[in-house]
């Protein structure tokens, strides 16, 4: 029984780390992986989703609806930012570093002034369950499954829906897509909003487990960027295996040597994977381009 519970504990940890990496990375994978925009304000979309979720939940709205509202709010914020700022930067994508950094500064500080340095959060739902000598949080055990559902939904969106075809066409060759009659500017806005909405969803999902401060988004940034870059340009087939590999390494190291080695090990793994596969993992799955 102890061996079984220890085994489950390892699986639980892996699922926890995997969910964190994948959910942190998805929004950024769409915006950076697909559009090439380096979005340093990714953390702020996450924060937006979390704050909206908490405010709605405290007003009495059921938690799943509150989370959806959080994601939608972040998506709307994404539309606004794309229209005002990002669309001027498509021919000079490196400058998106400065623009999104500036937006991140402004948003964080404004949130601090408007909402105060902290806000009372919400509790994690679903309680806990006991298995062997450990007790686990039910919600966190379910998070990896939610992450996989989100990935599945994204797959469906990109490969089975009209929007998906148009978006992939625009990413591959914007000029040709425009010649064929696609409204590329609308598509860019929609894609950016999708990325922002996914980030908001991450914030919403993690809101019951974390403290609500204006800088809460910065927790996710490093993990998001490394997962996206290691994964390469392909959102589904790149980011997911990248998150899985990084999660395995991080789980193993943290369990054996502690959190410090886990963190350092994660970063060193990133360096090694990039060194071994300079185009990112997604390339392994690319047949034609």
């Amino acid at each position, binding site marked *: 029984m102890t061996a079984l519970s220890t085994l489950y504990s390892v699986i639980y940890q892996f699922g926890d780390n995997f969910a964190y990496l994948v959910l942190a990375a998805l929004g950024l994978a769409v915006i950076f992986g697909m559009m090439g925009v380096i979005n340093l304000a990714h953390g702020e979309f996450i924060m937006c989703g979390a704050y909206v979720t908490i405010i709605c939940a405290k007003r009495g709205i059921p938690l799943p609806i509150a989370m959806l509202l959080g994601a939608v709010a972040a998506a709307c914020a994404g539309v606004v930012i794309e229209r005002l700022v990002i669309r001027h930067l498509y021919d000079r994508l490196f400058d998106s570093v400065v623009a999104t950094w500036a937006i991140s500064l402004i948003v964080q500080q404004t949130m601090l002034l408007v909402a105060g340095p902290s806000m009372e959060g919400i509790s994690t739902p679903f309680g806990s369950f006991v298995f062997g000598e450990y007790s686990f949080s039910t919600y966190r055990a379910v998070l990896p499954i939610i992450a996989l559902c989100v990935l599945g939904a994204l797959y469906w969106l990109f490969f089975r829906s009209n929007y998906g075809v148009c978006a992939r066409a625009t990413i591959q060759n914007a000029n040709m897509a425009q010649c064929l009659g696609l409204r590329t500017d609308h598509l860019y806005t929609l894609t950016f909003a999708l990325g922002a909405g996914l980030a908001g969803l991450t914030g919403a999902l993690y809101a019951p487990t974390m403290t609500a401060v204006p800088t809460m988004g910065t927790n996710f940034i490093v993990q998001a960027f490394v997962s996206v870059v290691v994964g390469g340009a392909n959102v589904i087939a790149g980011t997911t295996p990248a998150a899985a590999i990084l999660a395995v390494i991080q789980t193993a190291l943290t369990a054996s040597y502690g*959190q410090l080695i886990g963190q350092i090990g994660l970063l060193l793994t990133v360096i090694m994977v990039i060194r071994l596969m300079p185009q990112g993992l997604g390339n392994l799955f690319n047949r034609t381009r």
Partner: protein
Amino acid sequence: MLPDMSRWLRIAVTAGLTCSSIAALAADPIKLGLLEDASGNFALATIPKIHATELAVDEINAKGGIMGRPIKLIAYDTQSDNTKFQELSRRLIQTDKADVIFGGFSSASREAIRPIMDRAHQLYWYNNQYEGGVCDSNVFVTGAVPEQQFSTLIPWMMQKYGKKVYTIAADYNFGQISAEWVRNIVKANGGTMVGEEFIPLSVSQFGQTIQNIQKAKPDFVMTLLVGANQASYYEQQASAHLNLPMGSSVNVGQAYEHKRFKAPALKDMFVTANYVEEVDSPASNDFKKRFHAKYPNEPYINQEAANAYDAVYLYKAAVEKAKSTDQTAVRKALEAGNICTDGPSGKVCIDPKSHHLSHTIYLVHVKEDHSVEIPKVWDNVQPYWLDQVGCNLPLKPDHRQYTPSSLPSKS
């Protein structure tokens, strides 16, 4: 927006007071420089400090200032950034010519500006709890130190809950030194450390840590976690139903986690702090009334707010004793002893040898609904460790920080 209104109100009141003081006395103001983070990661805990300092300055100015001279508060927002601390402390010393400088939250920010203060022989007050050990002629500390917080907390918890202790601490100086103190006191009281984990400051996911604690089966957990990232531990351990009592020297009293997390995340958390908002004494209630009159929207009045408030009054007492603001004279007055003030936590006095402050230590117990009770109070706990290891600033000027594993050389 209310914060803006109170800010304008503050400006108007300060302007009015300053005008009246100047009109009445036409005296040269005493410049108090303040370096605190009004924005950035640390603002959560430091905004009450800034407000408390402003409250003390306004009160003193309303009563005529120090020796008839008004205090001019020159406050800069250091944005939780060490380089800003360095730049702005230079400005306070060289351009503004501050008579005294208060400030610093993280130990890194204090250590960044201590060399600058020392080079200029500038009087500097650090009004925050920390890992202890600063034996510096120019520095006075009103924050609580480990010997005051742990030597009271740990024996009490071991008596109540048992002798097996697990520590999780932030993986940097403060956490490591505090963990060392915990280890030593647990052993001295006949207990065992069943585990010790150090967590980097950027980590916010504690799944593995919670499993490790469950495996080790301690009687209680010492949580020495710092920062908003690490505070997520409390919600995560509650949702995993870890259900162990916790002890801390740094949570609740500084960053009011019991108000920021939904119950019962901090159930059975015991903290030793030199002040919390929930203290129900005449001095504390009067302080709270005045504080909330000026800042009605303050989320919490933490122990650092009390430290900062006391510091202004202690400085006033020292200047009055020295009859001058000359920094050497003020330092000598402080080192002569008997500089005390009656603050929100009662009477506190500067210890001349170590430049630290004696404290009333309150044992704070957070209950399941996050209400607070105070089962025990220790009066007049001295900062004895530095004296014990040989720090004697009136006789032996010094500029270093010592730790239990890096003691002053015996000479």
